[in-house]
């Protein structure tokens, strides 16, 4: 695979989004928008207590309400076939049990689905839902992380799995920390944060037959959703169809099949009609996971000249009482800097809340907030420029795995970023820069994100008219997957992007991973590359076999293909088109399916994306308000497939990072174990006025060791480190180190 990479981008380096027009004109169909004549509407009823049991459900008034088709709860559910038989009395699920929908009377968290009302219209279902009376017997709940911190423990999952990366980790000399010349210790906290994509989660569930299920469901992986639903309802995999062609953002909230999806499938089974269920904004806070509340302790030892001699990173993450959610919180610290002596610890705290899930840059965004804040603190303590400190500790090889990097241009990112930003104008002292009565702060942080590539298939089809269809069951939650894949196919086949259609978001297409871990371009992009390459080769052979073919004596590596016409070499004026070849052979279409996956290079190289962010903030000394004024972000993610969509990813990541740093916080009233932030008036995400000019730079050099297209993932690294860069800028502006996100007015005045 080495040295193989994409032909140069021609003729359109930044193809516009292939589905852009559909989206902006409203012609794209999202999950909740599929029309059905006999569609019924479902509304979830969720628990108002955090722990206890349901003692009574009075559904009679609701059942008697106009239009109501069913009120389903654990008392009358058609049941999920894969759930174990009920015990009497009900017993709490052991840790490691995915939440079971309408299973028994037990309550595990506030906001847990306890019943679903199905009616002819949405309004009727909503009205009826307000009439269902539910009595609970409460038990003492624990939702307060801080109050329960001492109960945090090594995850059972880790205890069972000796090779888990979350095992306690120590490398080097345990005495390095105590004997360090300079020592620093601090605790960093990030609150619970929610993905809250603009499109709420929604599903239409249709039982086509007793053993055939189709769902139009907002998720990030049609194949995994298919497998999950097939398993839950004990159906042959092929009898379950999952469609998620258009997704209005997800950020990780769609990686799993969540309870509301199962509830809709159960409801459709019960009423024997297609059922639609859309989560209201408030239910989005308790139904589809979140970035967990996490506390991290960082201890750093260094020489007076700023060489890191020891790092200890401990993280505690929150999870539910029934499942363990682990994330990479402490892992980046092992690979980021050339430090010989590193220890990490990771613990989980089970609370009476719903299970968290991956949210953009899962674990790394959290962990790098702590590590990169701590480095800034160290730089200040040493009176060293924060960028210089990072350069002095640059890891030239992976210090964790002792392997060479597949590619790493972090220094180039630092150089580009600092130049573009004007980092040299930063005065070292905090509070030393001002403009118009505002305190000015410059901050920076590094970022990294592991490379993920999963086995993926793609099918490429040449049609008789020379147009191309490429298919894979991959997803587009926003990055522009279809556009990038079209571009890869266009370059491989020498066909105009206009003549290519890329199909995704349908479980009947060739196998592909869900869209997460920034793995789509590396994985599916490689499969599309391989499938198109195979298709081209097959067509060239077919072409050469035509009598008197100009291709029969052509050297394969001299062949040029432009606009679907094949030239034996660059100088040649005669050509043959793909359509000619199919016509001659009387073929309606020619297709190739390829599977692409990583090989031995995984053990020869350590693979990461790298980057950095530079941020300028203004802080009002009067009100404590922080506004980000400027961001320069640089990433080395290998080859950039589409500059425009890549830029959008980076901008989106920075916006998410600004939200994480300055406003996003899901606040719970622990007396009730219930969120008080349950709408967009109280859960703040950045608005346009919060977002300044964001400049994006890419190194844009193929990483020849990772895959045939030389491209690594970008979605996650775009957010990793941003929160630290903002917090560091705030420190520089104000001299105040805020270690608890978000950095709000009350923490600065």
């Amino acid at each position: 695979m080495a040295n193989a990479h994409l032909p140069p981008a021609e003729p359109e380096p930044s193809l516009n989004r292939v589905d852009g027009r559909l989206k902006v004109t409203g012609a794209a169909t999202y999950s909740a928008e599929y029309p059905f004549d006999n569609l019924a509407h479902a509304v979830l009823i969720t628990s108002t207590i955090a722990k206890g049991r349901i003692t009574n459900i009075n559904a009679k008034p609701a059942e008697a309400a106009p239009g109501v088709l069913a009120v389903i709860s654990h008392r009358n559910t058609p049941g999920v076939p894969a759930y174990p038989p009920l015990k009497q009395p009900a017993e709490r699920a052991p840790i490691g049990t995915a939440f079971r929908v309408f299973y028994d009377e037990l309550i595990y968290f506030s906001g847990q689905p306890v019943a679903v009302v199905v009616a002819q219209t949405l309004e009727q279902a909503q009205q009826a839902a307000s009439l269902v009376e539910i009595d609970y017997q409460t038990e003492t709940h624990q939702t307060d992380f801080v109050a329960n911190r001492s109960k945090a423990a090594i995850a059972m999952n880790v205890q069972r799995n000796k090779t888990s990366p979350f095992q306690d980790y120590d490398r080097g000399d345990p005495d390095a920390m105590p004997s360090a010349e300079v020592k620093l210790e601090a605790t960093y906290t990030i609150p619970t944060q929610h993905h809250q994509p603009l499109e709420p989660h929604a599903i239409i569930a249709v039982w086509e037959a007793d053993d055939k299920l189709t769902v139009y469901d907002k998720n990030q992986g049609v194949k995994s959703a298919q497998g999950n639903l097939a398993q839950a309802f004990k159906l042959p995999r092929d009898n379950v169809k999952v469609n998620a062609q258009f997704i209005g953002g997800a950020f990780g909230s769609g990686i799993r099949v969540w309870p509301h999806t199962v509830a809709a499938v159960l409801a459709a089974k019960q009423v024997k009609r297609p059922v639609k269920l859309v989560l209201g904004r408030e239910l989005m806070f308790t139904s589809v996971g979140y970035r967990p509340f996490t506390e991290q302790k960082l201890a750093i030892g260094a020489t007076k000249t700023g060489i890191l001699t020891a790092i200890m990173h401990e993280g505690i993450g929150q999870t539910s009482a029934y499942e363990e959610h682990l994330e990479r919180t402490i892992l980046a610290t092992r690979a980021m800097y050339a430090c010989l002596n590193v220890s990490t610890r990771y613990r989980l705290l089970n609370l009476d809340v719903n299970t968290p899930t991956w949210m953009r840059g899962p674990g790394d965004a959290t962990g790098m907030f702590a590590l990169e804040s701590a480095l800034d603190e160290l730089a200040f303590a040493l009176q060293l420029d924060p960028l210089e400190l990072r350069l002095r500790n640059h890891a030239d090889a992976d210090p964790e795995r002792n392997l060479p990097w597949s590619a790493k241009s972090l220094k180039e990112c630092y150089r580009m970023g600092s130049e573009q930003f004007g980092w040299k104008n930063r005065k070292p002292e905090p509070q030393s820069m001002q403009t118009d009565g505002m305190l000015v702060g410059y901050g920076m942080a590094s970022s990294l994100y592991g490379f993920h590539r999963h086995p993926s298939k793609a099918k490429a089809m040449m049609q008789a008219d020379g147009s191309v269809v490429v298919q894979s069951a991959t997803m587009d939650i926003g990055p522009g997957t279809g556009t990038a894949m079209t571009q890869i196919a266009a370059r491989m086949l020498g066909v105009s992007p206009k003549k290519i259609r890329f199909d995704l978001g349908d479980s009947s297409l060739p196998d592909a991973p869900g869209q997460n871990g920034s793995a789509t371009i590396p994985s599916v992009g490689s499969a599309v590359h391989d499938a198109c390459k195979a298709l081209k080769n097959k067509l060239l052979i077919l072409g050469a076999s035509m009598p008197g073919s100009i291709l029969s004596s052509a050297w394969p590596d001299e062949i040029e293909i432009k606009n679907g016409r094949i030239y034996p070499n660059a100088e040649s004026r005669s050509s043959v088109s793909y359509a000619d070849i199919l016509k001659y052979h009387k073929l309606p279409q020619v297709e190739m399916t390829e599977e692409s996956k990583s090989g031995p290079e995984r053990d020869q190289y350590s693979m990461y994306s790298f980057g950095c962010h530079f941020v300028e903030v203004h802080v009002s000394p009067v009100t404590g308000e922080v506004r980000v004024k400027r961001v320069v972000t640089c990433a080395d993610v290998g080859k950039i497939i589409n500059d425009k969509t890549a830029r959008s990813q980076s901008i989106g990541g920075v916006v998410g990072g600004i939200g994480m740093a300055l406003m996003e916080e899901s606040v719970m009233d622990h007396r009730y174990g219930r969120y008080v932030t349950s709408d967009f008036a109280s859960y703040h995400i950045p608005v346009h006025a919060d977002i300044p000019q964001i400049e994006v730079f890419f190194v844009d050099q193929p990483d020849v060791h990772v895959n045939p297209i030389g491209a690594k993932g970008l979605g996650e690294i775009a957010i990793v480190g941003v929160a630290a860069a903002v917090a560091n800028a705030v420190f520089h502006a104000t001299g105040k180190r805020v270690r608890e996100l978000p950095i709000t007015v009350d923490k600065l005045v």
Partner: protein
Amino acid sequence: MKPFEYVRPSTLQEAIELVATNPKAQFIAGGTNLIDLMKHNIAAPGKLVDINHLPLKKIEKRDGFLRIGALVLNSEVASHKRVLASHPLLVQALNAGASGQLRNMATVGGNLLQRTRCPYFYDRAFPCNKRIPGSGCGALGGINRMHAIFGVPEKPDPRSCIAVHPSDLSVALSALEATVWVQGPHGERQIPMNDFHRLPNNRPEQDTTLANGELITAVEIPDAVFPKHVHYLKVRDRASYAFALVSVAAALDIDQNRIKTVRLAMGGVAHKPWRLFEAEKLLTGQTVSETIFRQAAEVAMQGARAFEHNAYKLKVAPNAIVQALKLAASLS
């Protein structure tokens, strides 16, 4: 949302009668607040009386007053030439509120009558005295970062409410000593802005002194004594589209560096727009200076009390007062 009846009367009398004679009937104007409340089953009117077709949509110059009809949109007021010239404070306050889309729907009358944003009020799983009198105040011992520091009870009692009124417009109207014109089943009356909203005392369910069936027809603002030295300062968690943590409306009439008249009101600190009468007194007749502004802020803060999460307001509010005064006086 509960099923409701919808009517669209064409005269004021009809509209007033429809609401006055039916305890379950409610006016609807832009609907930007009421519909939200209905979706959450906080408000469940049996009958919606749509007033959007009533003739209350004019901005008129009257003798000594500017009269703004209750149905004029927030965005219309904020872009009205005469208002821009004569009452810039109003414009600043309006533009600091909500979003462009909301301002295009929200009416002046509705803005005054929007309900608190206290999260306990919005979620029926929590207790809330404003929603269900006697059920308790969720915020008092709970999350109260957004809540009041003025007009709050010394000792919490079972009927307490520490919510703040969220309207920006009302704060400016309060500073400008506007009058609310209302018409009810028993005729017309005028309510001075400062008496329009009330402190919760023992009836937090009652936001204003408006009687059942009374319709706001207009607000009247005395003519421009403050066309120049005004500032509306809004401290918030993001740059736009967020309710005030603290806001200050400052209006000064300055003659040769002397403060002839001053009006100050704060938002985000009480159950009503909070006029700073004592600070106004202190400032009147004084020479413009940061020192005197700071003294005024200190006076203004007397009697403020914080709860577990809103102590920062005790620091932000006086700073915001000084800053608003400085900006209004073009002193920087």
